[in-house]
């Protein structure tokens, strides 16, 4: 589905992404981990068009999308949620999702009909059901809990029915119990939808529990790639992580 070939990106003299080649097969559920500053978010930004790689290819279903505008990449089926929930504070949860769905249905520039069109409303109801946000649907996005805001952010991306869904730390800023609840929801969404899911996560326990395949980044380069067991026993990973106290810090 999504394949990176020798992607390089540097800022000034600092190499943020160093010759990264990765493959995310169709329907896979992968995690990207690594210490702070390892280049995880940069990698996401490169894939979603927020940044343009200096060299290398980013192939979505064998089509190179490197350097395309975010709008075009979204249209080709790469959805994204953000580390800090990126939502529409003055709209209700329902309205936000309807807007996203309308955009997906290419009706966001329609002027001669009332909002929301019936098909948008129907699809939004399904989404709310899927996300389990029925209780908060009519609350303003600014007024719901942090966890719900993160979930809404994911929901916005889901509204586009992406082929590839990229979640930047879906559990950031949550308590332990909430984290497990959230990752459970993510996993359920992946199971119910037909998509390739990639997420960034700090909490090792979550990653090892959920991800089919794990990519470890360090200093912008791929340190290791494999299943939970393989990564757990990878000497360099152990050193990279246990050598620092990032793990402990992140899981607090």
């Amino acid at each position, binding site marked *: 589905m999504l394949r990176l070939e020798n992607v390089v990106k540097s800022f000034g003299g600092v190499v943020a992404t160093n010759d990264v080649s990765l493959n995310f097969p169709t329907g896979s559920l992968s995690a990207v981990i690594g210490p702070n500053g390892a280049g995880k978010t940069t990698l996401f930004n490169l894939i979603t068009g927020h940044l343009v790689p200096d060299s290398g290819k980013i192939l979505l279903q064998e089509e190179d999308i490197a350097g395309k505008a975010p709008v075009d990449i979204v249209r080709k089926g790469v959805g*994204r949620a953000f580390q800090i929930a990126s939502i529409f504070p003055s709209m209700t949860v329902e309205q936000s999702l309807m807007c996203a769905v309308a955009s997906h249905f290419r009706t966001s520039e329609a*002027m001669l*009909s009332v909002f929301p*069109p019936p098909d948008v409303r129907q699809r939004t109801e399904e989404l709310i059901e899927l996300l389990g946000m029925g209780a*908060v649907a009519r609350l303003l996005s600014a*007024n719901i809990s942090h966890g719900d805001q993160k979930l809404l952010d994911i929901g916005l991306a889901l509204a586009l029915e992406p082929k590839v869904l990229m979640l930047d730390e879906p559990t950031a800023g949550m308590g332990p119990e909430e984290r497990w609840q959230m990752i459970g929801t993510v996993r359920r969404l992946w199971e119910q939808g037909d998509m390739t899911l990639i997420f960034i996560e700090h909490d090792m326990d979550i990653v090892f529990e959920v991800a089919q395949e794990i990519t470890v980044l360090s200093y912008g380069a791929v340190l290791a790639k494999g299943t939970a067991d393989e990564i757990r026993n990878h000497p360099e990973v152990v050193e990279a992580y246990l050598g620092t106290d990032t793990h402990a810090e992140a899981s607090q």
Partner: protein
Amino acid sequence: MSLFIEFRRDLLIALVGLVVLIAIGLGIDHAWPRDFLTSIFAAALLAMSLNMLIGYTGLVSFGHAAFFALGGYIFGLLLQSPAFTGALGAGSVPVALVAAVIGTGVYSVVIGAICVRLTEIYFAFLTLAFQMFLYSVILSWVDLTGGDQGLMGGIPRPVFLGIDLADQYHRYVFCAVLFVACVMIMRIMTESPFGYTLRMIRDNATRAAFLGVNVTRVKLICFVVSSSIASVGGVILTLFTSGAYPEWAFWAQSGEAIFMIMLGGLNVFLGPVLGAVVLRILNDVVQMYTSHTEIVIGVVIMFVVLGLRRGILDFVKDWWVEKQQARLAAENRNGQE
């Protein structure tokens, strides 16, 4: 046709509103309500169309009055041209109206295409620069525009379809219809999917882009539509004063429109209309008692901005929304228990 069914409630309200306006204008045997309301129509269209940019899209334009003035000038200049009225006869007024709207629209495409790529303060300054540019063109191009004296000698208004705009009753009804029609167009736009896309851009333009919205294009469309509607406001004022004047393109006109929005409320559809009404009344009442109008209006603005911190209708809306949200939140809690 489905449009009319979907918006039947708003259309009905608009129709009732129009009937009330016409009843006030024709029913009261005094010219004052007609004059007052006509000037409100013009000011409110300027303010409401500007609010499509400010309130709905989050684009603070300092140069919106340029389009208002341009509409008035195109309309007036065409009707003052004997060649134009001679060729079109009874069709002159409607054609001039359409030409004013389209002409302003085309001009705003050019200005908008340059401006909408910038954000916040830079957008504001660039729109201001273009407005002042138009203002200095109007002042300097005396042969065409009459310079500071504006379009002199009255605007001829050939009778069309039995409508004689030289007659104050006909003119009032015509302006009322134009006003209500424009308000309805804005209502439909802001309640359509497009209108909600504007809200997305206002709240979080980056996120909107990541949801596949072509932010620049949507902003530009909104810019052009709102400019075109502002031009209708200019046409109404041109009919009202039987002339067009460079002051309409001066930055203070935009400033006043911004204040009307702020005063009435920028998050409520009819907020700018209330703002226009309140400001006009305030201005007129103060004029009756003192010549120091500026200081009084200045103090009132200070009070609204620093005291209320939002417009009148925004205040009401926020109160209502808060209440509703609290109720919903309480229901959720109860539901979970």
